[in-house]
Structure formats: C-alpha cells, structure tokens
C-alpha cells in the first residue's frame, strides 16, 4: 500500500482584514468591496515559500529529522529563485539526506498536486522509500486587484511512503489544458489575468467538474461513496457551484478556507487535505483536486491508522495563532511592491560570500553545531576547541543538531536603530534546555508580549534579501511561544 504517511500545514501568523484592503484601494476598483469579507493569511516579512515549506514539513515530521527520506519535492509559483534550486535549500534546512532527490515543481498552481503525484510514482517505482512533498505560496498582487483580496499565503506538506499509511492512494486523473488563467512572464513580479468572468466560468466552473466527473466515471465512484472532495476556487459563489455541478451535498465539499486564509495557490489542495485528514474516518474516500493549466484529481482512502497521527500543530491551532497585520501598507511593503524609506542605514547591503555559506551550510541552513564529546557541552557555531574553560578539548567534537531542541529567552531587546521593515528589530539571546546558547533574531512576536524565560521555537526564516544582487539568505530565528491569556 502506498499513500500519505504524515501531513502538516503551516499558516503564517499575520492576517490581513480584507476590509482594510478595500478601505485603502476601493477608490481605484470599487468592485473589491464585494470581496471584502473575512481575513487572509499573510506571510511575515521574513517568510517565503522556502521557509514555509520547511515549516510545514517540520510540522508534519513533528520536528524530527527523517534519515529515510529519498525525495523532497517543493511546489510553488512564487519561489524566490528561478535558478538555485529552492527545494535543495529546504532539504539542507530539514537536514534530510543529501542523497534525497530534490525537485522544484512550478509553472502553475496545479504544481502542488503534480508534485504529490510525482512523489507517489517515485515511491511506487521503488526509487524512494519515503518522499516528502511540500507546497507553499507567498503571493504578490497588484494593489487594488481582486487577487489581492482572494489569495493568501500558507504552506502544506505530506510524506508519501509504504509504512504506516494514513490515506492510501487509490488512483488519479489528469487533464492538462493551456487555459491561461493567471500568467506571468519570467522576470516579472506580478501575474496578470484575463477577464475574471471568463476565468471563473470557463476555467474553474468548467474544467474542475469535467475532470472530477471523468475520474469518477473511470473509478466507478458515485457522490454517495465519497466522503470529501477538496478543490480550490477563490471565488466563494463559484466554489459552491462546482459542488452542486458535481452533485455533492455541501457537507462533502471541503471548506476552501476563504474566510480565514484565502486561496493559497499550489499549496491550497494540500493545505485542505491536511485539514481533512485530521477528521477523516477509516474508509473515507477523499478526492483532491489541483487546478491550474488543467486539473489533477487524486483519490485517497483513509486507513484504520488515520487517527493515529497528529501533526505537531493541528490545523485549528495554526488558525488560532494569529495577529492582525496593521496597517494595510505594511503588507504591501513586506512584498517589496512599493519603495519605502529605509534610511541610509537600510540601504547598505554587503556582498554575500557564497563560498562561506557553502562551507558552513550545515551550521547556517541546518543549524548544526558541535557537542564536546569530553564534557558534553553543545556549542554553536561549530568549534574546534571546547569553549568550557576547564575542558578545552581539541577536535573532540561531534555534530549536534539545534533546530529540534527547545530553548528559552535569556534576554531580549526591541531595537529601533537597526534597520527593519517591521520595526522594532526584536532579538536576543536564547538558552537551549539541553545546553547551548545563541544570539538570534526573534520573529512572529511583539516586544510587549515577550519576557525572560519564555519558551521559543526555532524556525528557518529569510535573514535578508539583497535585491541588488538577487540573493536571499536564510537563517534560524526564535519564535516566542505565546501562551493563552497573554
């Protein structure tokens, strides 16, 4: 049996109220008032599809490394790099084996389900024992466009394998079509679409029912036998209409999360699947539909083991962890859509020495330090000579992974002098519960809500973007764990 063996989503902490977008931008496009309900998830300034794919995989893997992984496919249409593989950066961060096959899957929002299909085929062919699939999107849209309100940012990850299968893969159907919904020339920042009515009616409303019906006929699957159908469509009215056309009662149509998250592109079918698997019962048939230049339909059936797994953070917990992004202009500035005053301090960007990154990649991307085998003290960055005054052992270090260890705030500050697009720049020193100390940037927090001794998690984030030279660098940041009532 081949199927999904682990799953986990990632929803960024920030939410943008659609009303705030409409208030700011309806002057140019009054139609956005019609889309102004609810909120959407927005990536923090230091997040991109790589960091969110890593976060989703870690959620699914319950923060444990996976030495049996044979492949990592990452899907997105908003990758930071078009050359320098995005998936391999994620693999380094996840400390997956360097023999794992890595693949960027992109080109259309169907890439998420296509990546999942490829991973299933890889495991079926025996070339990988276990394959990881992640999809994530950090959208950019023109200010005042419908896309700006409809699309949200999130990530999702699934492990595919043959042991402890939670949802068995039953079959699939793919229909490809050069239906040019959104299109974006290489080198361009922003996508452009043909008339919205045409995209809705001839795209979503026509192609999804056609492909699902074709698969159902092939698999002899009637609406009665299906528990849940997962398909994207950012327009709420048309989303419901697709279900009707498929003869599905509303309770069998998975909530597209429009009110809380927005449509998350390549990630969306996988994100909805992560949510559906949390409540699936053994024997349930689930159809997962990916849309974009065609349609993928994937059929899974939940096994008896489906309830035995929970990601590190459940979907509800991800939705509950949130903060409203205020004001709207911040969301625009975070995506580098408009020039903002950074001051001369913010203009300065030193060259990124890539040879230094290469030889230190396990420390920088993988957060690997060393542990002294004589005195047992974990140390970061890696050391040759033990820093413990009375030990000083030379070359008696072993590799030591910090990214999965718990840590606490030792000290912190909120710095208004350091340049930040989200001031103040919050950083401090954290102590690891099992030893080791680091000075780190903090993220996803406010100065008012953090305190000494507060537990933190570590997350890979973008450290900086050198726009002049086209370099994104990544490192780990501390995310204070917010306890209820604070």
């Amino acid at each position, binding site marked *: 049996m081949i199927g999904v063996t682990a799953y986990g989503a990632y929803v960024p902490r920030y939410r943008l109220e659609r009303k705030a977008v409409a208030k700011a931008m309806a002057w140019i496009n009054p139609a956005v008032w019609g889309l102004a309900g609810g909120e959407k998830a927005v990536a923090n300034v230091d997040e991109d599809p790589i960091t969110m794919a890593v976060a989703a995989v870690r959620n699914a893997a319950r923060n444990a490394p996976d030495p049996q992984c044979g492949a990592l496919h990452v899907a997105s249409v908003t990758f930071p790099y078009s050359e320098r593989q995005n998936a391999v950066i994620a693999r380094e961060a996840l400390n997956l084996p360097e023999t794992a096959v890595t693949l960027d899957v992109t080109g259309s929002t169907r890439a998420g389900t296509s990546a999942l299909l490829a991973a299933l085929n890889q495991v079926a062919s025996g070339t990988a024992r276990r394959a990881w699939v992640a999809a994530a999107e950090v959208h950019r849209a023109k200010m005042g466009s419908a896309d700006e309100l409809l699309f949200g940012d999130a990530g999702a990850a699934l492990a595919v394998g043959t042991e402890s299968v939670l949802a068995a893969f039953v079959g699939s159907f793919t229909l490809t079509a050069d239906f040019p919904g959104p299109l974006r020339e290489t080198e361009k920042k922003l996508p452009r679409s043909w008339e919205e009515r045409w995209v809705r009616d001839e795209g979503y409303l026509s192609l999804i029912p056609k492909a699902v019906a074709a698969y159902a006929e092939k698999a002899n699957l009637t609406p009665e036998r299906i528990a849940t159908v997962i398909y994207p469509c950012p327009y709420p009215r048309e989303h419901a209409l697709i279900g009707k056309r498929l003869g599905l009662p509303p309770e069998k149509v998975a909530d597209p999360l429009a009110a809380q998250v927005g449509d998350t592109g390549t990630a969306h079918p996988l994100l909805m699947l992560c949510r559906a698997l949390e409540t699936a019962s053994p024997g349930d048939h689930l159809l997962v539909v990916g849309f974009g230049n065609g349609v993928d339909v994937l059929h899974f059936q939940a096994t008896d083991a489906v309830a035995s797994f929970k990601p590190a953070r459940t979907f509800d917990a991800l939705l509950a962890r949130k903060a409203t992004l205020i004001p709207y202009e911040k969301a625009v500035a975070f995506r580098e859509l408009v020039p903002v005053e950074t001051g001369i301090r913010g203009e300065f960007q030193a060259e990124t020495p890539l040879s230094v990154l290469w030889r230190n990649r396990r420390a920088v991307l993988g957060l690997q330090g060393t542990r002294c085998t004589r005195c047992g003290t974990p140390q970061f960055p890696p050391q040759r000579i033990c820093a413990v*005054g009375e030990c000083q052992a030379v070359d008696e270090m072993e590799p030591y992974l910090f990214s999965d260890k718990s840590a606490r705030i030792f000290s*912190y500050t909120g710095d208004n*002098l350091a340049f930040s697009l989200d001031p103040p720049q919050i950083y401090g020193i954290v102590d690891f519960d099992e*030893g080791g100390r680091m000075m780190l940037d903090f993220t996803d927090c406010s100065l008012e809500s953090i305190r000494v001794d507060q537990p933190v998690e570590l997350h890979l984030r973008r450290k900086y973007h050198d726009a002049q030279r086209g370099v994104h660098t990544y490192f780990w940041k501390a995310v204070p764990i917010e306890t209820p009532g604070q």
Partner: protein
Amino acid sequence: MATGIKDKVAIIGMGCTRFGERWNDGAEDLMVEAFQEALQDAGIEKKEIEAAWLGTCFDEVNIGKSAIPLAQALKLPSIPVTRVENFCATGTEAFRGACYAVASGACRVALALGVEKLKDTGYGGLPGFDTAMGTLNRFILPNFTAPGGFALMATRYFAKYGISPEEGKMALARISAKSHRCGALNPKAHLRKEITPEQVLKAPIIAWPLGLFDCCGVSDGAAAAIVTTPDVARALRKNPVFVKSLQIAATSGEEMLTTRWDGTYMKTTTEAARRAYAEAGITNPREELSVLEVHDCFSITELVTYEDLQISERGRAIRDINDGFFDLEGKIPCQSDGGLKCFGHPIGASGIRMIYEVYNQLLHRAGPRQIPDPRLGLTHNLGGIPSFSVCSVGIFGL
C-alpha cells in the same frame, strides 16, 4: 616572572580635540589638532618621537587602513607607525603599544593617537556591523546594533535582581543626568546641556529598555598621548603622571558558547580589573581610587561596570547611584568630563580621551570640575557588546 608595567612609563603630554559633529573637519584636521596640543604640553620637539601608534576603528568610513594616514598627517619622519584596532577599546590599545615600546626600552619617546571621523556615514549611531564581524557572522548573527547589544544586559540585569522596568530605567536615568552635569562644565564636550532624570525617561526608545539619553554621543574627534621613560619625564617636569597598570582582556567565547555567564556583568571587565588592581598594588579599589572614567557607551554599561570594577557590590550599584557616590562631589566621581555620554565617542579616540581627563585631574588642570586631591585614576575602555567583548583597564597616578 612578569614584573608588570607599574611606574615604567610616564605621560608627558596629552591633547584632545573638541568632540562633536565636526562637519567641516576631516580626520587629518582632528589628528593635527590633538597632536599639536600634546606636543606643546610635552614641551618636546616632534623629532624626539621615535615610534607612533594610531588607533582607529571604522576605517571604511574614516581614514582607511594602515598607519600611513597618521604618519602623513603629522609628517612623521619615516619612524615606525602602527595602526591598531580593537573595537571601541581601540584608543587604549594604541596607548598600550606606545607604553610597551617605552617599557621595553625600544624607544625613549612614543606617541599614541586615536581618531575617529564618524559623522560621514549619513545616519545616526555607529556604522552597521554587517562587515565588521567577519563573513560567517553575517549569516548567523542577528541584525543588531550597539544599543541593542547592551540593552540585552539591561533586560537581564533587571530580571536577575527583580527590578521593575520603571525602577531600573530611573536608576539608569540618574547615571545619564549625572554625566550631563559634568559635560555641561566641559568646553570640549559634544553635549553640554544638563538634563533631568525625568527628561531621560521621556526620551524616545532606541533599543528597549534604553532610550536616547541612555546612549552616548556619536562624535568626531581625536586624542593623543606622548609617553616616555621615568628619567626623561622627571627631567621635563617635577610631577609626571605614571602608568600604574594597563590590562586588556578579550573574551574566549565562553559567554556565548556555554550557558555559564548570567548576562548581568562583563566577564572581560571583571578579569581586566582584577589583573589591573594586582599590577597597580590596589587592594581596596573603593577606598583607594579617586576618579573613574568608564566606558559609558550606554547607561547600563556604566551601572554594571561599577560592580565589575569592585566599586559596588554585585546587585548593589543602584544603591550607590542613588547615594550620589559617583557624582562629581561624591566619594569617587565617575565621568567628571561627561564621559562617552556627553564628551562623545569617536571610537578610536575614546580610550585616550579617558586618560586625558584622568591626567588633567591628577595635574589639577580640570577647571570647574576639578576633584580635590586625586591620587589614583582609572580608565575602563570596552569594545564589542557584553556577549563578546574586549576590555582594557588602565590605572594612572603621580
């Protein structure tokens, strides 16, 4: 066994420019100004200087690398000139080079000059640390600044001793207000206005919990010292100032690589002070020292330094601050010239500027801020941030 530097080197001439935003003066102007004052003070001729040390930190926004800018500015006649740099402890490092040259017998007269031209960056505060910390650190250190690095110590100090932010910030405000009273008396100081603790508390936050008036001035300036052997010094004047001790301690990394350091003190200051007292023969610094010039880059730095120098007991500095112990009229005045806080902080010059004030106090040249009958003065010059630092302590006396 090492015999130390005590009484082997004397200071015979010192000079210091006015510190501040010297928009219309370049580093050359500042170096010449400080040097000419020192030379006149020493009463010697330039040709008697046999070696020189230049201290400057942010060379990329300043005079560039090497010691050549000093040799050329002063037209030193092809003598050995060396540039040194040790973050904000650079000035004392230059001074140490000159002292070691004299103490070793390699030179009879040596010059130390520190200069920094900081106001050509286009923004407030120090230049960014992006390129100052090495190439690996660019990938792994946070986007920090100096006030942020020291703010971490304030957060930690308040947490360890159970001090509320209001109480802690008030103690820090008293430190800054005290230094402003001294700075107002000093014609060479960058900031010459008295302020109240209440004004300090109302100032905008730079790096929580430190506000604008918890931070020192970022200034242009230069300071110079001419040192020589005791014999030469005594031939020139009857009361030369002697170096009693010069100690430098650089972190081994233990503060950040292990979890032993509790973040409420400076390990390097503690060690440098311990060795300096031993070298100078001081057993009870609280009773024996007359004047302190400490590295008050931020108010919290001055607070923990009182403890690291063994003047205040650990955790009890606030009591001494509240008692006025470090005021100009107090038991041991600290920052009688206004300190980094008000005199200003042209990085490479600051360590020598501190010595300049102690020297002037010992020679009763400090005018309206003269301390009665000073015997021993201490300078404390710190580089880096508390988690990775280099610290020098100097002790001077007649």
